[in-house]
């Protein structure tokens, strides 16, 4: 009984600690900007020739899009392209992926999110692709 109690307490405490850490993470929109431009935009421009400027969607649309976690019309996960594995796969050709190779996935995702929300059509500083 005591052992179970200890485990429960430890688990709860760990979760609290984790949530404190998560709350403390302050998204870096500038890092998000570099990754978005150097990886997301660069690939889209090369592969599809299309613009994916943050200002093409509103903040609510970006929130919804990121939450849905669907990329290429639902063919795969958006998070995949932020993840360490993907960064490792392109780091030889992509300086941003190389520079941020060790950034935790969740943080980089928050960074990118902060940038697109800030640069959204109705964001603080709508960002085009110029």
């Amino acid at each position: 009984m005591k052992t179970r109690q200890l485990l429960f307490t430890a688990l709860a405490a760990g979760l609290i600690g984790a949530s404190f850490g998560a709350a403390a993470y302050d998204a870096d929109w500038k890092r998000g900007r570099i990754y978005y431009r150097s990886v997301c935009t660069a690939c889209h421009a090369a592969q599809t020739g299309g613009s994916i400027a943050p200002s093409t969607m509103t903040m609510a649309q970006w929130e919804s899009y990121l939450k849905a976690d669907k990329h290429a019309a639902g063919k795969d996960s958006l998070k995949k392209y932020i993840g360490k594995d993907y960064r490792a796969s392109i780091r030889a050709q992509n300086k941003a992926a190389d520079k941020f190779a060790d950034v935790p996935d969740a943080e980089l995702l928050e960074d990118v999110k902060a940038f697109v929300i800030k640069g959204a059509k109705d964001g603080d500083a709508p960002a085009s692709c110029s």
Partner: protein
Amino acid sequence: MKTNRSGPHASFRRAALLAVMLFGSALHGGEVLAVSKASTADHSKFKELQQSFASGPEVTRTCLICHTEAAKQVHATKHWSWEFLNPATDQKLGKKNVINNFCISIPSNYPFCTSCHVGYGWKDANFDFTAEQNVDCLVCHDTTGSYRKLPGLAGHPPYQDTEIPPGSGKFAKAVDLTKVAQKVGRSSRDTCGACHFFGGGGDGVKHGDMDSSLAAPDKELDVHMDATGLDFTCGTCHRTSSHDVPGSRYTPVARDTQGAHIPGRADDSLPATCPACHGQAPHKGGGHAAKLNDHTDVLACQTCHIPRIARGGVATKTSWDWSTAGQMGPDGKPMLKKDEAGRVIYDSKKGDFVLGENLVPEYRWFNGEVTYTLLGDKLDKDAGVTRINRLGGSADDGKSLIWPMKVFVGVQPYDPVNHTLVTPHTAGNDDTAYWKNFGWEKAIKTGMQVSGAPFSGEVDFIRTEMSWPITHMVAPKENAVGCAECHMKGGRLEKVGGVYIPGRDANPLVDLAGWLMAGGALLGALAHGGLRILRRKS
């Protein structure tokens, strides 16, 4: 119970709890720790900043509780006074006094121009330059990217959602001053760029080597500011001391003859020059590198290392013709015309523009001396183009180097009776503002009254030119200007006099002497070889 809590199990439990909590925090806390290395203060923890602010000056008063000397330091800078007395010419310069051929001048347009002043409330000539709370700390120290100052608000950010331009249906959101104040940090390319990228009325308009593409550039655009490489901020080169930013447009260092500036030297100056870091022999090695180093007594580093300007996808203006302003569209309202790239090339408020990207600069000798044509200086329209700023320099003054320039040409209003430039009242919603009523006479009369200068009532237009030394957008060395681009006829330096450039220049006497020496050397070698052969047989 008390016994249990203090027993060995309790100790184990506390240790386990602490370990797991630390582990949990560590899962997410890595970046926070990394950030804390860069800053010694988390401003969100300061009680003074945990309040709502109604205005910028309220924020500044709070900043000054701790940063007691900051406002006094800012007051002593050109960023604050917009005034500069050139000791070499005794000309009173600074944004407050000069006239250019972009938006022309500041007097009578204060509330709009001062959206780029590091202060709050400069709406007319009565601005209190001694008030410490008028210093805008946030415009340089914002890290959120959400702080912005709107034209027409005299340096204030929007405190409510504000329609801009009025009647457009587009709204700028009110700035969350508390959020910005709690997130202050070092200045950045974004904060400096908020004004300097947009000089002349828009992105990239004025400088040619500074625009919003430098906010997060790649290596090809700028080797130093490369966001995935060296990631220099503006302050890395413009090493600021007591809020005073080195690197003047009015008295630039055209030729830095000092070596690299090493901390601890007796000379503690901080010039924003290339040799300040790279020294006088920047190319390492012998052979070709040594030959390149031989050029540094003639060429500015920028001449070779900035092959083109406006390379980041943002066009710069190269010409502005105010004389065609005022034409209305078919509906009788002000109109815009755009080119095939979507760039505005005509605006009823401003006239015709020419824009360009990837432009080859012009090249001139420059020794750092700049003389301006100021309000009141007499002009002669028949004498050719009026130079708004005249750059000193020649091949033989011992102080000059060949520099790349953006040369901006304009056609702007002037007074044909008094033969002077004029300071029109352009921005505003009153009846005399040109952008409201499109009448030059009324606009110039108002502007000249504010400037305290005479105006005859007659308006003509005069051709002007302004030179902007180029120093940003440094390309990778692989993309530097090649030898053959100058050492040729019709090359980049075709119009630069006072220097003999092999490949471009030919002097019959020098050529004759060269051929005679080469022929003599050949004859000598043949004679010497022949004699050796003959002597071997004997």
